[in-house]
């Protein structure tokens, strides 16, 4: 199992990489000890969105399916959590609400994915059909202001958004503040490690083979549609996890976190970071979220303009992504230096370089 942590589909390997990984993780774990609780809450807020970015990275970078529907599933699970948490009552059932809402998002992804993938649409149309679904959901929720729009005691409330659900709770203990932060860190480590294992497993190889050439993968005897659907369901389910966590974090959700411009954000994070690698996406998305939040305090529009500029700049200057590009430069520089110093290690570096391409 552990062998799958490293492989041809992921960058970063060996002692140096994993030492850095552990150092960052240790830093993240002790951070709440010396930061004030407001900052910890903010940090937890950035981490919410990482799942969505990793899901898109899996679908787009590894599976070659450019989904514009991450906020669609974000919204389904976000509203799903709200409705379930209100209807089932607070307390420990909120954990069940979280799990169920993610399952609902995955079922929705399964249905939408079935029609698109079995219909055989791909490329551009995959993007605009998922975006159409996203926008329609946002429009629909936007006009549910009237009192007739409710599921049990849960009012949908139109543009003002749904509120009044409990945060994640175990017994009498609300998972908020630094407790929520630790839950997020744990979830991110689990999801990141699991995705690394997935893409380096034989399933991951088929997913990548399908991205490279669907006909060839099919000729090799794989039913590529099943692998694509699996990728789509997992990627969208991660967006759902973000949505459910978001609702429980702020105890509210509005349609504006589904429609435009929210739907563009995961695309910007992943494109800027480098869609072909999970680690690049993880790091890049976090940096972008941090920057975005810093600027949003002054002007949300300015922050969104900057996101647009970054997206445009990425596709024009570094189609593979900036973070990935910089990461590769560093690795190249490092291996070159090592090669000069110790010639015997050549075989090792050669392997590393061939895997990157």
């Amino acid at each position: 199992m552990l062998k799958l942590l490293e492989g041809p589909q992921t960058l970063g390997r060996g002692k140096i990489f994993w030492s850095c990984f552990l150092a960052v993780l240790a830093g993240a774990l002790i951070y709440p000890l010396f930061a004030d609780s407001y900052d910890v809450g903010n940090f937890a807020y950035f981490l919410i969105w990482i799942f969505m970015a990793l899901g898109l990275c899996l679908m787009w970078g590894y599976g070659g399916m450019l989904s514009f529907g991450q906020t669609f599933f974000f919204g389904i699970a976000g509203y799903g959590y709200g409705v379930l948490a209100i209807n089932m009552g607070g307390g420990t059932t909120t954990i069940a609400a979280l799990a169920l809402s993610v399952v609902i998002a995955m079922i929705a992804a399964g249905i939408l994915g079935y029609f698109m993938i079995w219909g055989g649409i791909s490329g551009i149309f995959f993007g605009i059909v998922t975006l159409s679904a996203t926008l329609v959901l946002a429009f629909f929720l936007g006009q549910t202001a009237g009192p007739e729009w409710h599921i049990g005691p849960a009012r949908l409330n139109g543009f003002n958004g749904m509120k009044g659900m409990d945060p994640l709770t175990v017994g009498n203990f609300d998972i908020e503040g630094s407790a929520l932060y630790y839950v997020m860190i744990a979830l991110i480590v689990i999801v990141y490690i699991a995705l690394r294992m997935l893409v380096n497993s034989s399933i991951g190889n088929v997913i990548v083979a399908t991205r490279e050439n669907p006909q060839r993968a099919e000729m090799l005897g794989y039913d590529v549609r099943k692998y694509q659907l699996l990728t789509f369901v997992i990627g969208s389910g991660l967006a759902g996890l973000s949505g459910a966590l978001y609702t429980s974090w702020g105890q509210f959700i509005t349609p504006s976190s589904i429609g435009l411009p929210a739907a563009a954000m995961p695309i910007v994070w992943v494109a800027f970071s480098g869609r072909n690698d999970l680690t690049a996406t993880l790091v890049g998305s976090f940096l972008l979220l941090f920057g975005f939040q810093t600027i949003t305090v002054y002007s949300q529009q300015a922050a969104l303009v900057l996101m647009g500029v970054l997206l445009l700049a990425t596709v024009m200057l570094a189609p593979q992504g900036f973070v990935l590009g910089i990461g590769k430069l560093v690795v190249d520089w490092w291996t070159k230096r090592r090669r000069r110093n110790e010639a015997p290690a050549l075989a090792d570096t050669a392997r590393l370089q061939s895997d990157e391409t």
Partner: protein
Amino acid sequence: MSAELFSVFYQFADVFAFLILSAAGLAIVFGMMGVINMAHGEFIMCGAYVTVGLVNLGVPLPIAQILAALTAGIIGMIVEYLVVRRFYKRPLDSLLATWGLSLIVTQSMLLIVGSAVRGIGTPEGSFAIGGYTFSTYRLVLFACAVAVLAGLYIIFMKTRFGVIARATMQNAAMAKALGARTGRIYSISFGIGTALAGLCGALYAPTMTLIPTMGATFVVESFVTVVIGGANVLLGTAPAAVFLAMIRMALNASYGQIIGQIGMLFAVILIIRVLPEGLSSVLVRRGR
């Protein structure tokens, strides 16, 4: 009886006009270059703002609308020259680039213009058939949609530009080898596409509130029409609009706008399962 029949036709015409006008520009760009212009909604918004600005300066509405379409066309050609041109070999990247552009434009407009702009009222005039009254302007919109279709038919089927454009659409490399200046064809086509988007905004400007995010109101309809129309846009767009308008009209009448839109989306998702290539693939097969 005839009044009811006309009422049904009127509702159909209303939805049909909306679908055709919002989708025509997107369809031309997609059909010619295989590029989906994600900033389509922003060109619509541009047309609407220019129209309202000119009318507020005292320009008569029809002239303002034509000028708005021209403005959008010229801006479109500039955008093509600066950005889109680089991505003809990478259609997915063109999607991202134009989406980035769309974000920049919408949010800058919100920053600069703000959300409130004084609108212009819908041109008055209505007529009655039986017990019902109908707005004349809605029928003008329908006439414009039909005129757009007829105009595109003439441009692409009856002119020299059209012949070269269709050749480029079928096989760009071959057309280039035969001496067609494909770069210029692309530039003009993109200009036509964005001018049509501008026209859409110009025509609907009097009927809606002007906000920088208004483009989003049109994009779902334009996307689904293009998806259902399929690759051969000259053949597919009009039947797709007729088909979707019928579904939409039936649902609108009994359940309201939003259910109409949801129903239309469901219909589209069902159809791509059976006809992933769109309606035009069926029509092309029939034609052979």
